[in-house]
């Protein structure tokens, strides 16, 4: 593909834009890191904190863990379970819904997907309260499963949107070929279409996992007794007023996200979709 992307001048331009984008994204991260690792006199206790602190300490982490390690662990596990249920359920439901949508005319599927997004237009707070009442009756209140089901409201439209796009981009003949080659409807769905949709499915899983991981509104209302990590950090930095410990927590929160992104990223960059189908 000879395009303007390969023009050296344009490449320099894109490079500069990318650097600016990275800086904007990383500055908050940098601030978080120095608050977590530098001595307080150079960060939160200073009137004019230096951009590059010179004295470092692990006392924030030690303090955070020695005081709250069991709460932290519980919150971590709760977040992990919730996010994994959200991701798995979103992908399992989303794939089948998307397959149906991909068989419809573009106009029809676009209409249905925009209707799905209605649920995300309503503020979470508005739905969280009636949900909490129902969950109390159903015994789902304060449980990981209940929280995951509520978060699904926000996540599922996104997942369906993403996977539908992937399925629509698959060459139609592959499914027809599978049927002719002897695959039943379900077989062709799971042995041919599902593997081909992997990049979209992993991307959707990753995104819904991360959306759940730092979801706040549903979590604070539906699971306040045994909180998830974002809620715990919030309680620490505001109610307990210890921003130092909270920074240490916050940094820990990002580590699983980085790990899962690295693990799944190789599945997401699938450019093999149309190979073997010439013309």
């Amino acid at each position: 593909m000879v395009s303007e992307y390969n023009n050296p001048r344009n490449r320099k331009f894109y490079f500069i834009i990318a650097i600016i984008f990275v800086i904007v994204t990383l500055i908050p991260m940098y601030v978080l890191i120095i608050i977590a690792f530098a001595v307080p006199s150079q960060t939160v206790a200073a009137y004019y904190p230096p951009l590059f602190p010179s004295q470092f300490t692990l006392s924030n982490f030690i303090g955070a863990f020695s005081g709250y390690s069991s709460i932290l662990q519980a919150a971590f596990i709760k977040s992990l379970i919730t996010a994994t249920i959200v991701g798995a359920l979103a992908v399992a439901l989303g794939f089948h819904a998307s397959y149906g949508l991909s068989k419809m005319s573009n106009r029809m599927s676009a209409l249905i997907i925009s209707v799905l997004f209605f649920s995300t237009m309503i503020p979470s707070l508005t739905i969280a309260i009636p949900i909490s009442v129902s969950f109390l009756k159903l015994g789902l209140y304060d449980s990981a499963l209940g929280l995951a089901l509520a978060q699904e409201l926000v996540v599922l439209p996104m997942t369906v949107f993403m996977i539908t796009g992937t399925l629509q981009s698959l060459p139609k003949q592959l499914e027809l070929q599978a049927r002719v080659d002897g695959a039943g409807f379900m077989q062709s769905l799971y042995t041919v279409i599902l593997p081909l949709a992997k990049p979209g499915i992993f991307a959707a899983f990753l995104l819904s996992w991360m959306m759940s991981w730092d979801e706040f509104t549903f979590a604070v209302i539906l699971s306040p007794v045994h909180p998830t990590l974002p809620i715990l950090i919030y309680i620490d930095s505001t109610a307990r007023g210890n921003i130092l410990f909270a920074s240490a927590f916050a940094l820990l929160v990002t580590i699983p996200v980085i790990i899962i992104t690295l693990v799944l990223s190789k599945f997401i960059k699938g450019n093999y979709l149309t190979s073997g189908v010439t013309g």
Partner: protein
Amino acid sequence: MTAKLELRNVTKAYGKTTVIKNLSLLVEEGEFFVILGPSGTGKSTLLKLIVGIEQPTSGQVLIDGKDVTAMPPNRRNLAMVFQNYALYPNMNVFNNIAFPLKMHHSGNITQKVREVAEKLNISEILGKRVNQISGGQQQRVALARAMVRNPAMFLLDEPLSNLDARVRFSARSELKRLQQDLKQTFVFVTHDQKEAEALGDRVAVLNQGQFQQIAPYKELYEEPATAWVGDFVGDFPMNFVDGKGFRPEWANIGSGPYSIIIDSSESFGDIYYVFGRTESGEHIVLKSPKLLSIGSQLKFSVTRFKEFRDTPQSTVGNV
């Protein structure tokens, strides 16, 4: 295993558009049957109806006398090769060929795949990904996948059209040899005259969802049933003077009752094709052993005419 194919009054409509109009057809066992037609005339739709991916609006599809119209494609035991080969990109060559065997729970998969790969000369690439092999190899892999489970019939949708001219030529003769070897029924769809001529035991000319004529290619050329077929079949459309058709080979140049003014000429090996117009403006193609100058007058006589009931209309726009 080989099978007979029969279509009875098959019609296929999408909404208001009727793509296939009341077609009936009988393909004999072991026949290499070619469906020839301009693009957009329902050739591929017809294959999809036979294979069961599409359902006819009315009419029946019979395989070996058995009505399979309502049978899903996976139970018809047919093999199909799509124009773009539709190789599964997530599997390597071996698994592509093995896929139909796995779906049919057949035994000895490894042995069967190796045998068919050997026959088609693709044993070396069995471990490769399908995007690592050439177009010609992809076509063989698609054929191997079709052959591997010994289907009742082969349906091929322009399988040669994505190949380079040179590979296409050898693939064509190979395909013919393969069919004679397997003695199986092939239904082959194409818009390419040369392929129809080289491959087909019989050729069905399809236009706007209807068969114009079903005959060996030579007969289509010599004895077209309609002016449309005369116009469509052949390297050049049939010539018409006074509403009667003739081929360039049926004319003698030099003297005669007809004459044209020469517009252009093209060399084809050791002869020339001469393009010109009569006084009344009809386009004529003639053969000449030597180069003739443009703008000059050429007299000719015609040894034989073909008369049609329908009026000639140009197919050039459709091709």
